[in-house]
């Protein structure tokens, strides 16, 4: 038996034994994933158990090195693990910005000391992170951010305000873009620092969205303290790290567009019915759904192609911008179609009969997908300038 086959068998056996039954049902939505942290939100006691068991093997971040709390698996083994998890419907044990965003940046830019300090806590779900990027006057034009960090020798004193800080009210630490120098161009003088949110100088206020939920916050810094050992990279070099991390964020957001189990066309057939030829009875809606499903299939082929090319050492430079732009626009289309297909059901806002208003709330939330992490327009600017070489106005 090959090593990989052995690995598959061992993994299968371990998952069978250790994945609680309750963790083998699909999540109800994005908020149903376990995010960890000092005060984790626990909907089901098995969430923490499942996370702890997986973390012990390093399998919450199977591709990270073992020294940093990962599983040290190669890409083939990671693939087998995810196939075996999918086989029994096991959900991800831990889902966090630490894993999807800060981790990759630290692995790439962090010092050895920083990696050893922060990565294992991410892997075990002990510390939940949030991202301090946008400011009231620095949205699409992120580099004009003004939150100031004053150098006090062994630490920085931070003053300013962030906005659209996802889940800041639930996070323990923040990775934050601050301005350490005002003398050069706006891209210079930005630094990337990490600090604990649990201090008097940090105040968090959730923002209620049109969806009725509050995934984002305003975050205020009034003489907040960041230890200098938590400056990632060089002072003034934060923009490079910020951009690297943004590509991971874009890929994550574009993944929201992944097709659900039952296609929109199937749902439409059930709610609207077919004509005598077996086609969906409403031909206008049918065309819209077909176009959406076609683009979803083509988008999937593109994700696969870019992944295969990356493995082969080739790469599409603007891939993350294309994915962010296309994936979020697709997700908005899917939500619009859900509403068109479900009609009255999709207008409910609350109550069991409307599943808590999931359809309407998801639809409203999806409008933000093409704004957060760089608007669709910013992605198109990036493609136009960096790939197509079109000049500035």
């Amino acid at each position: 038996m090959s090593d990989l086959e052995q690995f598959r068998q061992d993994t299968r056996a371990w998952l069978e034994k250790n994945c609680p039954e309750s963790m083998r049902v699909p999540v109800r939505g994005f908020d149903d994933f376990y995010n960890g942290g000092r005060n984790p939100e626990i909907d089901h006691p098995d969430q923490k158990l499942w996370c702890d068991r997986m973390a012990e093997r390093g399998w919450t971040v199977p591709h990270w090195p073992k020294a940093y709390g990962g599983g040290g698996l190669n890409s083939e083994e990671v693939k087998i693990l995810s196939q075996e998890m999918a086989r029994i419907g096991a959900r991800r044990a831990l889902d966090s910005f630490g894993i999807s965003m800060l981790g990759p940046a630290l692995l790439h830019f962090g010092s050895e000391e920083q990696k050893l300090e922060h990565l294992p806590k991410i892997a075990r779900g002990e510390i939940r992170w949030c991202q301090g990027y946008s400011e009231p006057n620095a949205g699409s034009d992120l580099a004009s951010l003004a939150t100031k960090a004053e150098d006090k020798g062994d630490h920085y004193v931070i003053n300013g305000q962030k906005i659209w800080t996802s889940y800041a009210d639930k996070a323990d630490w923040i990775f934050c873009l601050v301005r350490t120098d005002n003398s050069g161009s706006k891209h210079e003088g930005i630094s990337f620092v990490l600090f604990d949110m649990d201090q008097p100088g940090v105040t968090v206020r959730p923002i209620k969205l049109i969806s009725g939920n509050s995934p984002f916050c305003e975050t205020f810094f009034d003489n907040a303290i960041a230890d200098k050992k938590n400056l990632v990279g060089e002072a003034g070099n934060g923009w490079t790290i910020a951009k690297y991390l943004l590509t991971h964020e874009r890929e994550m957001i574009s993944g929201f567009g992944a097709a659900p189990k039952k296609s929109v066309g199937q749902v439409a057939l059930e709610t609207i019915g077919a004509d005598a030829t077996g086609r969906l009875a409403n031909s206008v809606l049918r065309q819209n759904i077909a176009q959406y499903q076609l683009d979803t299939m083509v988008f999937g082929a593109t994700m696969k192609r870019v992944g295969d090319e990356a493995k082969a050492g080739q790469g599409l430079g603007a891939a993350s911008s294309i994915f962010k732009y296309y994936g979020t626009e697709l997700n908005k289309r899917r939500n619009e179609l859900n509403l068109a297909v479900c009609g009255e059901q999709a207008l409910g806002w609350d109550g069991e009969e409307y599943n808590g208003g999931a359809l309407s709330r998801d639809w409203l939330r999806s409008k933000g997908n093409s704004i957060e992490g760089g608007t669709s327009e910013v992605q198109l600017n990036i493609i136009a300038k960096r790939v197509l070489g079109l000049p500035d106005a």
Partner: protein
Amino acid sequence: MALVLNEEQVMLKESAAGFLAEKAGVAQLRALRDSGSERGFSDEVWREMVEMGWAGIAIPEAFGGLGYGYTGLGLVLEQAGRNLSASPLQSTVLVAASVIGELGSAQQKEQLLAAIAAGDKLVSLALQEGAHHAPLQSSLRAQAQGDDYVLNGEKLLVLDASAADTFVVIARTAGEPGDEQGLSAFLVDADATGLAIAPRSMVDSRSAGALVLDGVRVPAGNLLGEAGAAWDGLSRALDVASIGFAAELLGLSTEAFERTNAYLKERKQFGRVIGSFQGLQHRAAEMFAELELARSIVLQALHAIDDGEADLALQASAAKAKLCEVAQRVTSEAIQMHGGIGMTDEHEIGFFIKRARVVQHIFGDYNYHLDRFARLNGF
């Protein structure tokens, strides 16, 4: 199979690009058009293509081909699309060879595929009868008479009709229009008694024509496969053809886009290059994203042929529908972004939208394939 090109494929693509740009580019197409060429392509250039093995590129080695598979042929067709290269690659190598490969007996394949691969024979499929691609609606009749069949009816949009030595004529030996049962495929030589070939002048300056069959008598041995049972094989061959034409559209659209993007950096108005205007930049960026997506589905569909995937029909309709959509958008924008110069015959960009329109139509346009895509998805 990973969605990347291997070394052999990259070499093939590069050599095709170089050859076609030099020998069969837009300038040569214009010259063919202006000379009123009835065959619509240069025999000399075709001979060179044959010598490079392209006539048998997807034909198995056992039948005298190169056995590079359809991914290999797709790469050549993509380059033919980029250069608007006129040749029988589409009519004979892509379409007719696929139909023969699907339906022919071992002996027929041995004879015909070897002749195609050697460049000794041009073959073209005669399928469409009305304004639209509707293969099940075929009504051209083939009546059994003794050991022969007698064919009566008309066909349209037969590619390279003036140059073909032999046609594969889809005819009804039984059943009614709409039925899968009863469709048959016959080999009919171009010089058959009762066959009239009418060259038609088409918008893309390529050679297509109409056939009128008036009591054309062929022996039963000219049937490809069983009488009345051509549908399954024909349908698969049409899927292959659709994917091949999607590859041509990919090359054509990419080239039209790149020429347009270059023009945006060169043309000045209001004292600066027009490519600095965001109104054009975003449209260009959207097209670029669409083209990257288009490239993925074409490659995936080509692999689906070579890997014998069960969802070939879905892949084919997805690829053709998507590429029709992208080609229409990109070639229309190419004219708009070139402005007045794009409307002139003197400029080459107009040749792209003309060829695109024909390729979009052949064997099912966007509307046909999107409808079929939905059907295949169960709605």
